[in-house]
């Protein structure tokens, strides 16, 4: 039947004549006239968020950005990104206990990304490429004295020198490094690596005064001309066992022992060495004693579960066939003519948790027994030595008292590392050195240090970023940490991480050769590519491909994507399909 003519009049557009009728329905113009954006009640927005590894890194590294650069094989740029926050990637890549990996979202998918191994690779790669720190662009007025050259002191010196300040490090020992040199054995951290990273920092023009103890070679008064002082003297005083016989020869503290080993002194240990304690110092002491030819025995008063040492260190000690006895407390060191003969011990039961929440050992009366040993090394804890600090400086039982900015009770005197109350790890020390550098810089510039640090923080766990400080902080939403549930894991392939290679246990104990081996360039790249890049747009193009309105386009500056709100009808498919949670939904805009 033919169409009735009156039907045509109602149409908004005149119909073409039947002779030019297209065979199918076809618009006269394109779709640009149809602004579907007017339908929108939800609006997607590109908002980069915080990756959980960044928040978890005590040294404040931008782990996500480092992984992204490494994934593009931009290893030197990745090293620069790392060292913006932490000048010691070769060291951290070996000794950090990597809380970043503990927070890694990939753990819920298959296994955490090997961030620590990659950091070591980047550090070593940059060193082999002859990479050095760039000198500061401008000199700033202000001289800062840093007391102690462990990781906190070195980190503070690096950041202040990079900002253009004149820095002097005072170190009581003949060489720089503090716990890195005199505490950590070289099978975990070879000395040449330590020397190289220190050298790199010193090349920024840092003045050094070694063999200079505070209160001896330099007085507190003599530090007066400095605009600020950073105290990073660590925790070097061993907690005594407080049992009879402790004063005998061949009874020493773990730190004292490690210090001697690390200084290359010859130590007579005898055959059987008892190490008292279950922390990292105990593990280091036991493993060092083993390497010196002795037969170490670790005595711990609780069980293996309660040992404060890092799991990996305990595992390595076990691989090396070091003996452990648990639920045992020493009560007396048996001596004969001033020499250790044995150690009298008591068996314990594990009791209910004490004030610190840890189960308390309860001695079993009459369970005494004697172990024949030649040397006793006590490693039951360390506390800071305050003897060289001014009396008026406020202290608590085990630490210097500092406020939120790391300032002590004395103006312009800051403190960080093991001397203050914080977890005693290299990365926390590095973080506190950086925190002090920012607080010092803000104070010297007449700014509010607390506000400066607030702006520089990564998330809520105390991680501080120099990069964010320099940028003056970012807006609120970027503080949000991306959860695993916010990722679209359909876009990721399961891929196991490569286990870290180690020297075989049999080859380790004859000397102090490094136990953990590095990863190859191929493995480093594979690991970097395993990173989800949580919360940060990496131009994967998914949003562009999925937008049904073609409202998303790549920005001409290659810095992400733009949304044309004239056409975005707010379906938010882009938000759903973003693999890494870098797009947020805003209601009503």
């Amino acid at each position, binding site marked *: 039947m033919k169409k009735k003519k009156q039907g045509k009049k109602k149409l908004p557009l005149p119909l073409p004549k039947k002779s030019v009728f297209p065979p199918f329905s076809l*618009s006269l113009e394109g779709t640009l006239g149809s602004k579907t954006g007017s339908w929108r009640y939800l609006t997607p927005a590109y908002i980069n968020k915080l990756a959980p590894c960044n928040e978890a890194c005590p040294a404040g590294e931008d782990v996500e950005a480092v992984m992204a650069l490494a994934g593009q094989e931009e290893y030197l740029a990745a090293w620069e990104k790392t060292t913006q926050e932490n000048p010691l990637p070769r060291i951290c890549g070996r000794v950090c206990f990597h809380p970043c990996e503990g927070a890694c979202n990939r753990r819920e998918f298959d296994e955490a990304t090997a961030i620590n191994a990659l950091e070591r690779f980047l550090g070593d790669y940059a060193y082999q490429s002859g990479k050095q720190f760039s000198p500061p662009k401008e000199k700033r007025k202000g001289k800062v004295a840093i007391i102690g050259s462990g990781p906190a002191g070195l980190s503070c010196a690096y950041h202040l020198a990079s900002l253009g300040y004149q820095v002097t490090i005072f170190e009581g020992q003949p060489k720089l490094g503090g716990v890195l040199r005199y505490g950590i054995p070289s099978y975990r951290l070879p000395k040449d690596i330590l020397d190289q990273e220190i050298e790199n920092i010193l090349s920024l023009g840092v003045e050094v005064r070694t063999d200079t103890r505070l209160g001896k070679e330099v007085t507190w008064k003599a530090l007066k001309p400095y605009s600020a002082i950073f105290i990073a003297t660590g925790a070097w005083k061993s907690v005594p066992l407080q049992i009879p016989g402790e004063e005998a020869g061949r009874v020493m503290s773990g730190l004292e022992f490690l210090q001697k080993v690390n200084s290359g002194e010859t130590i007579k240990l005898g055959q059987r060495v008892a190490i008292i304690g279950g922390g990292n110092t105990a593990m280091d002491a036991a493993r060092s004693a083993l390497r010196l030819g002795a037969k170490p025995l670790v005595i711990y008063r609780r069980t293996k579960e309660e040992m404060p040492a890092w799991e990996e260190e305990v595992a390595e000690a076990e691989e090396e066939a070091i003996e452990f006895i648990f639920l045992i407390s020493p009560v007396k060191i048996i001596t004969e003519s001033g020499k250790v003969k044995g150690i009298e011990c008591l068996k314990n039961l594990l009791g209910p948790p004490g004030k610190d929440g840890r189960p308390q050992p309860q001695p079993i009366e009459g369970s005494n027994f004697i172990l024949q040993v030649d040397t006793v090394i006590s490693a039951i804890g360390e506390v800071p030595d305050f003897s060289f600090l001014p009396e008026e400086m406020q202290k608590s039982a085990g630490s210097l008292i500092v406020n939120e900015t790391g300032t002590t009770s004395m103006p312009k005197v800051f403190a960080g590392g093991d001397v203050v109350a914080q977890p005693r790890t290299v990365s926390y020390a590095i973080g506190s050195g950086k925190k002090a550098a920012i607080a010092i810089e803000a104070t010297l510039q007449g700014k509010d240090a607390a506000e400066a640090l607030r702006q520089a923080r990564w998330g809520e766990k105390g991680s501080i970023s120099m990069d964010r400080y320099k940028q003056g902080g970012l807006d609120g939403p970027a503080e949000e940490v991306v959860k695993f549930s916010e990722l679209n894991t359909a876009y990721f392939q399961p891929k196991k991480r490569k286990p870290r290679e180690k020297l075989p246990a049999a080859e380790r104990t004859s000397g102090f050769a490094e136990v953990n081996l590095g990863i190859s360039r191929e493995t480093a790249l594979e690991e970097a590519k395993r990173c989800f890049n949580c919360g940060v747009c990496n131009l994967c193009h998914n949003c562009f491909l999925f937008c049904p309105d073609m409202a998303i386009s790549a920005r001409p500056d290659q810095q992400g994507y733009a949304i044309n709100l004239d056409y975005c009808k707010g379906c938010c498919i882009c938000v759903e399909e973003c693999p890494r949670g870098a797009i947020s939904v805003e209601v009503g805009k």
Partner: protein
Amino acid sequence: MKKLLTGNSAVSYGVMLSRAEVISAYPITPQTTIVEELSEMCADGRLPAKFIRVESEHSALACVTAACAAGARVFTATSSHGLAYMHEMLHWASGSRLPVVMVNANRAIGSPWNIWCDHSDSLSQRDTGWIQLYCQSAQEALDTVIQAYKVAEEVLLPVMILEDGFFLSHTSDTVDIPEPKEVDAFLPPYKPRYKLDPNDPHTFNIMADPSVFIDFKHEAQMAMEKAKKAITRVDREFKARFGRGYGWAGKVHLPDAEVVLLTMGTTASTALEVIKALCQQGKKVGLCRLRMFRPFPAEELCQVLSGAKKIAVLDRDNSLGAGGIVAQEVKAALFNLPRRPKVFEFIAGLGGRDITPEDIQEILEYTIKNPSPNGQPLWVGIQK
């Protein structure tokens, strides 16, 4: 060049020779080897086409339909449930008047689960606006692919080529592969009148309101009428160049037959042998193999069949509650003839059951013996 090819392989050669530019398909038995071979041809460069892998038949047809709208010569293939899954897109392809060419290797539709041949899959899509051509041999499948592009691009309708699953798709036969030069001369590149072009943006398939919708459908119906002539003409041209032709109905063996067996697909080959033998016994029987089911050649059938007294329609399909689909259409076509033959309906070979020469002989003898059908289709070989 002659080669021993299966029906599926012959189809792949047909697609290669037709220089398809975009291919998208999802594997399903018994079609799979068509696109398997095409993907190899794409990979090794024999066929410089874009091969798009998809997650479903719905997407496969959506892909090739869109590519066709953008001006490409396209191909897809499927079977059974895959074709059913394409149902919505079948309408869109034909409504958009796009010359998409598809091969469906006929296979029963479950349940019960079955991978073997019958025509219920394609016949349940008879109203989707696609031309349907049923092939009898591997050679015909190859030739029909080339012909199909020519017809489709002329009348702007999609073409579905049907080959019996396994009987044709997986059986080898000698196939003469035409020279590419000759095929190029026969089938020039596709030059669409309308295509999606970012430099001249238009929306395709915009809403057509009640004042124009029926006109588009009428246009498509006219195109179907045109297609009847085009199919016959293109087949003639093909025969002139390549020496092979098939017409709207394949070999019609009708020497003054009083009883004519009408069927589609490979069954016709078996039937021909039976009919030849019966003719030698002096029986006046003939064969009509229907090649073109859509558009339905009603007028042509009237001409051919009006002289016969009885028609036996052998359906390899059944419309539940009605009967054989081909029989219904044949009856409707003959209805207005002043002296129409009686139509006997038979259902056989569903789900791949063999239709044997004995079955066909029985069908013909039943038709000869009985003066008129008993009102119900007869199901061949039902277990008692």
